[in-house]
């Protein structure tokens, strides 16, 4: 089944679900399916139990941090400069608001097919970081979602045991975010200082 078919079926059979195909420009051509955050669980359930898909194996769960970024697009416009119509490049800057993203790589052990890539976005990076947990659908997401919670700060609703996993309880930061700054340490200059010549 192609990704396009999966998308249309999802939208047809999961009421209210909105899916979108994200095209991957690299040679791997692993396109993915962006699902809206309200219907993640239902969509996952559908994908797992669908007899033709049987995506019974959720291999990889990843979080990605997308901070606010400025996208510079070069737009070629035709404009009349000095009376001659010329193609002129203009850079148009748009600010894309940041969000946290979760990526699920699904495979089918029964059919030996895959991957089908699911993505979900949080609303932003600060206060609305909740997504539906897919652990009830695939147990394999349990530790990986905990990891995403720990290192990225994504809260998974419906996760049975959402605690920090790699860092200790009481640690307050989310170190895998792009804007994380580790606590200062005076060690790293030792190299330069203890030089015999210096």
């Amino acid at each position, binding site marked *: 089944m192609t990704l396009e078919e999966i998308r249309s079926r999802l939208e047809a059979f999961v009421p209210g679900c909105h899916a979108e195909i994200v095209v991957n420009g690299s040679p791997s051509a692993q396109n993915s399916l962006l699902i809206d955050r309200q219907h993640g669980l239902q969509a996952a359930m559908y994908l797992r139990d669908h007899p033709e898909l049987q995506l019974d194996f959720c291999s990889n769960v990843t979080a990605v941090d997308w901070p606010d970024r400025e996208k510079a697009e070069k737009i070629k416009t035709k404009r009349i400069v000095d009376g001659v119509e010329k193609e002129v490049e203009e850079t148009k800057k748009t600010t894309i608001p940041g969000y946290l993203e979760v990526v699920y790589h699904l495979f089918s052990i029964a059919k030996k097919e895959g991957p089908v890539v699911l993505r979900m976005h949080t609303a932003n990076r600060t206060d609305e970081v909740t997504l539906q947990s897919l652990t009830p659908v695939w147990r394999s997401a349990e530790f990986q979602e905990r990891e995403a919670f720990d290192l990225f700060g994504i809260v998974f609703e419906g996760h049975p045991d959402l605690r920090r996993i790699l860092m200790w309880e009481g640690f307050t930061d989310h170190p895998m975010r792009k804007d994380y700054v580790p606590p200062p340490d005076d060690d790293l200059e030792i*190299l330069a200082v*203890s030089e*015999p010549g210096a």
Partner: protein
Amino acid sequence: MLGEGIVKGLAETARNFLGSFIEKDRLVTVQYPEERLPVVEAARMFPFLIYDGVDQEEGLRCVACQICEKECPPQCIHIEKSKDKKPDFIGKQQFYPAVFDIDVSVCMSCQICVEVCPFDAIRMDNEFELSTDDRFAGLLWPKEKLAMPNEHYLAIHPTEATEVEARRAEEKAQAEAKKASQPAAVAK
């Protein structure tokens, strides 16, 4: 029958026990430090800098291009470029490292510095008896400690080193031929 597997296992250990007195294969211990395993050519531990000739400063191949410093995954190389230049083996004027330190307490022996070096200046040594009780000075190797004569390179990585030698000789010959064909350019 119960006990059969246990008896089989006992026979196996007995075989090994008795065998250890007879067969060399069964007693694999290499009694370091008196006996040593043969050192393989590819073995790598920490980098060293190669110099040609007898004088360290003079013959150091490194031109302080700092590629290795940039590519070093754990960032354990520290280079400061010289202000002046000196000629390299083909007579081209090059910078040289005023400071070249490797923090071997950080180095992960990955050999990436060797791979990226375009000047065959840095190679991996196979010395491993390096334990020390001096945490800082003992494990921060300056240029003076890192520099090793080319003969050392030839001794520990003979195959690779002879290839490098040949290539360098060729380059040198080419450079000299070029020099000979364009004497005016040099004179200028």
